[in-house]
């Protein structure tokens, strides 16, 4: 009787602990935006950019076009390449969970060099410690014509069991 109770108690108490320290799966939400400044009073946001209005409103533009919105679930040990525009490609490794609750991510934005011989170069290479659900905004890359490329990234995490 006492033995059964003890074992049951251990299992019950060990369950939340195992969940808390279990493997987590990460998912990236990515907004690719073309930001421009046009002669207009009001700021215009494309449909699909609602979730990032606040982040974009800090930029010196008044026209935001939703180029694409993606959600990517990472598998183990993979490098993900996402075509952003005809000029830029995003490359990202699978986020690795750290002990402090943040995720280590290596992120590169690749483009072709301007000078011949044209080769792939890093428009941006960065290593980040990302807090889940806190956004990262990458800006400054020029687009053909006018405007700049704006990326907004947000990492979300779910338990493996779910």
């Amino acid at each position, binding site marked *: 009787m006492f033995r059964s109770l003890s074992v049951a108690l251990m299992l019950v108490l060990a369950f939340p602990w195992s969940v*808390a320290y279990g493997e987590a799966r990460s998912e990236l939400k990515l907004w690719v935006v073309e930001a421009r400044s046009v002669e207009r009073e009001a700021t215009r946001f494309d449909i699909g950019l609602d979730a990032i209005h606040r982040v974009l409103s800090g930029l010196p533009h008044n026209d935001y076009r939703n180029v694409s919105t993606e959600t990517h679930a990472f598998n183990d040990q993979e490098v993900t390449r996402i075509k952003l525009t005809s000029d830029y490609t995003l490359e990202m490794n699978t986020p690795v969970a750290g002990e402090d609750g943040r995720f280590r991510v290596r992120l590169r934005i690749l483009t072709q060099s301007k000078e011949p011989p044209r080769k792939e170069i890093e428009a941006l290479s960065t290593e980040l410690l990302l*807090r889940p659900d806190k956004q990262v905004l990458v800006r400054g890359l020029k687009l053909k014509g006018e405007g700049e490329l704006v990326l907004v990234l947000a990492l979300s995490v779910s338990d493996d069991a779910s």
Partner: protein
Amino acid sequence: MITCKWTSKVERLLDGESQEQEAVQAHLADCTLCASHQRTLLQVRAALGAEPEVPVLSDNQFPAFMEGIQAEVSRSRQRPGGMWALMSLSAAALVIAIATFSIFTGPGPVKANEVESVSTQLNDATVHWDNSDDGVTTIWISIAEDDV
């Protein structure tokens, strides 16, 4: 079957109840039948005396006897299983302590985003980063006007 009228007297003699011990003793010296009967009785009594004595419970001892049984039964019910129970309880207590510690201390507050390294291979470009008050990290690639 040949019998002797003195056999009952011989039995009373052996039981210590005879009133005429000398006469019976004199008869035993003359009567082979009674002498044989006496030997048989002595052998039977000797055999019975070798058996362990069975305790006899008197009526006034019976309530104490039942109380003893009840006390022993209730004591064995209360005994939780000795060493096994002690070890199980110790293990359960340890798990409770660890789980409580994990639940109430937790992994601590999660820090803000951090840019560990940043670089660009674009000509005439620099990269800066900062964190806003609401936790949004901005990485800004600043490129000269004539460079795409």
